[in-house]
């Protein structure tokens, strides 16, 4: 089984290195085909491992290389395939393989086609390291690797100019009504990268604390000894690790980068900013569950923050007209759900929602990519409409994904999301339950608002310029497996539970079957209510918000993302820029540079002055010689050992 592990891990790397060879050459179709083929190889290896772990319950644990071995420090490059990581591996490879194939179609006309695949496969490799590592250091390498690849892919179209700042809500880069996802791709890439570095510092501190107190970063060793530590220390470790998770999973207050990351090509949003990388934070909490179980107070904080983000993000999605941002907010909101589950100790539920969410959210994004492709990169849902008859397959797939996202029986979202609500109710966290319940309704509403605006109603696009068309058949074929999984992934709940509870703690919740069915009914009711409201209102009015509504403060707050980007700009970016300018002009130029320049100038000036000695005039030379002798004599008298 070891060889399967290595195949699953290294096939994407081989693909990436291969594509890198051609990264500066014009589009070559075989680059996309070969990287996709290698991803499928990785997928097959992962599925083989999944079957093996499921059927034989053996954990594959290899120590590939020594990395740091000094004294008592022993950090290897080790990989473990257990019930948790194998689920992640399969999710990651399925989604990435399909996204790779989809990208062959999506990036068809892009002149950096080859470079795209180099980054994309490098991302998958980093993600595999992240999920498969058997220690925190390896996880951190993968963690930074995905961050780097995310940077390269968000800023993939780095040559685009910055757009002008505007107060107009329809034009501002911070508003969700504008056609711009952020100021520019390179700006968004840097924002994502820097925000993540800030959060990663927290994670590093957590890791240092672990290493300092336990002397190892290997999962099994850390988890077996964590209970022996001081309670306050465990709280600190858990909190710092969670700060890292907050950054990667874009939880409040690090959430603004995710919406701006929509600058990247849409397959990137599907793979990185919906299905895999942003769930790494959830994965970290699940992986380190034995740390978080010991400190339930941190868990409650995680759950509360998750619920807060779930509701906040969903509310922002209500008014947005930027298609990708709507889906990004929905991702944010679903990540909140996962953190609620993880925070309340229902780790396998979080993992389950992570998996089902990866399928339906990635396919939703891929569908959005098809729509944008068909409408000359239009991103405003109000400028689409009636596309269902032009692109029926995409419409069908996106509708399926939206139903799954809304959590309607029997699609995947129903099983996982309902379970989270059940966990919240069963843990007597009624406030969290209420928040999530409302969010479920909002989710259903905004998902179908998007579907209605894009695929139904009147055609609002410019008929002279835009001729919507269905995408290539192979792209639809790549989306189909994900759509099927969006439908049926939830049906395997039983097998899933049986497998992962070998590693993760089982659910400790007791609700009577009456309450259980009531909960399902109540949740389904609000989700259906949201969908029906969205459909009926659209059929009746063709729009959702009246003109008076748009002048109201609450609308503006939501459209401006609660003014959070503005807040960050005013509180962090601008003062930091000021501080940097101060350090540059006052400290750097006037002190450090002045000292360095002063030394150089002194030497230079001394040399200049000294050239008069070299006049070639013998009597001057003699004079200097006389002075020299005089000085030597003085030195001899002063320091010489004369009796």
């Amino acid at each position, binding site marked *: 089984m070891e060889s399967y592990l290595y195949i699953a891990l290294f096939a994407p790397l081989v693909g990436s290195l291969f594509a890198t060879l051609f990264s500066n050459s014009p589009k070559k179709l075989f680059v996309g085909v070969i990287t996709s083929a290698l991803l499928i190889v990785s997928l097959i290896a992962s599925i083989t491992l999944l079957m093996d772990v499921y059927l034989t319950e053996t954990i594959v644990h290899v120590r590939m290389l020594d990395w740091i071995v000094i004294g008592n420090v022993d950090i290897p490059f080790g990989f473990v395939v257990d019930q948790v990581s194998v689920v992640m591996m399969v999710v990651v490879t399925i989604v990435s393989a399909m996204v790779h194939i989809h990208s062959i179609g999506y990036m068809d006309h892009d002149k950096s086609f080859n470079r795209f695949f180099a980054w994309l496969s490098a991302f998958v490799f980093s993600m595999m390291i992240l999920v498969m590592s058997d220690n925190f250091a390896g996880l951190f390498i993968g963690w930074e690797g995905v961050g780097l690849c995310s940077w390269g892919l968000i800023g993939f179209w780095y040559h685009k100019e910055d757009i002008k700042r505007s107060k107009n809500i329809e034009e501002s880069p911070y508003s969700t009504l504008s056609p711009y996802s952020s100021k520019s791709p390179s700006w968004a890439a840097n924002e994502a990268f820097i925000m993540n570095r800030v959060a990663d510092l927290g994670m590093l501190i957590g890791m240092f604390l672990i290493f300092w107190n336990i002397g190892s970063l290997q999962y099994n060793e850390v988890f077996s000894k964590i209970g022996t530590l001081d309670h306050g220390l465990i709280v600190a470790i858990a909190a710092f690790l969670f700060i890292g998770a907050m950054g990667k999973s874009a939880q409040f207050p690090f959430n603004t980068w995710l919406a701006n990351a929509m600058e990247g090509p849409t397959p990137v949003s599907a793979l990185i900013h919906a299905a895999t990388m942003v769930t790494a934070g959830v994965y970290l909490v699940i992986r380190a569950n034995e740390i978080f179980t010991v400190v339930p107070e941190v868990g409650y904080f995680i759950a509360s923050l998750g619920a807060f983000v779930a509701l906040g993000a969903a509310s922002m999605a209500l008014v947005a007209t930027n298609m990708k941002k709507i889906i990004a907010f929905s991702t944010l909101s679903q990540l909140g759900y996962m953190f609620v589950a993880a925070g309340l100790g229902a780790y396998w539920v979080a993992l389950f929602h992570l998996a089902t969410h990866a399928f339906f959210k990635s396919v939703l994004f891929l569908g959005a990519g098809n729509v944008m492709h068909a409408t000359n990169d239009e991103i405003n849902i109000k400028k689409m409409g009636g596309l269902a008859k032009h692109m029926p397959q995409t419409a069908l797939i996106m509708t399926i994904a939206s139903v799954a996202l809304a959590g309607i029986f029997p699609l995947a979202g129903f099983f996982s999301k309902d379970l989270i609500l059940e966990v919240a109710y069963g843990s007597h966290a009624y406030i969290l339950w209420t928040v999530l319940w409302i969010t479920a309704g909002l989710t259903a509403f905004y998902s179908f608002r998007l579907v209605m605006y894009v695929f139904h109603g009147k055609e609002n696009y410019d008929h002279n310029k835009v001729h919507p068309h269905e995408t290539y058949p192979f792209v639809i074929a790549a989306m189909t497996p994900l759509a099927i999984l969006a439908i049926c992934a939830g049906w395997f709940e039983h097998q899933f539970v049986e497998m992962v509870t070998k590693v993760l703690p089982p659910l400790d919740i007791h609700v009577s079957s009456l309450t259980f069915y009531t909960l399902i009914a109540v949740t389904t009711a609000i989700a259906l209510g949201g969908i029906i409201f969205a459909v009926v209102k659209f059929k009746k009015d063709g729009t959702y918000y009246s003109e008076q509504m748009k002048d109201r403060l609450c609308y503006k707050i939501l459209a401006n993302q609660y003014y959070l980007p503005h807040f960050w700009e005013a509180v962090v970016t601008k003062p930091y820029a000021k501080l940097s300018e101060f350090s540059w002009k006052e400290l750097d130029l006037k002190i450090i540079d002045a000292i360095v320049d002063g030394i150089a100038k002194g030497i230079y000036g001394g040399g200049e002055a000294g050239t008069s000695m070299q006049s070639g*005039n013998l*009597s001057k030379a003699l004079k200097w010689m006389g002075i020299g002798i005089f000085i030597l004599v003085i030195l001899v008298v002063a320091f010489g050992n004369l009796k």
Partner: protein
Amino acid sequence: MSDMGITLNDYLILSTIIFMIGMYGALRRKNLLMLFFSTEIMLNAVNIGMAAISKFHGDLTGQMFAFFIIAIAASEVAIGLGLLVLWYKRNNNINLDSLQSMKG
């Protein structure tokens, strides 16, 4: 040692004074001939010192050395004056400041 109260110190002081005079001349004079004179004065100041110390220690080496210096000084002056005459014939002056072909 020496009679009439003239001690080694007196000789050395004399030697130093003459050396200083010679050095002053070497530094201040621009005329090459004067420069030679000054050099000779300095050499002879050293000779006085050598001879005095030699007598003081009762060791003849110093006086021998003084003879060597006189001999070398004589030959040096001979060569130097020869060059000086050549230089004067070519340039029509023996000013030190005109001797500047190696400017740094």
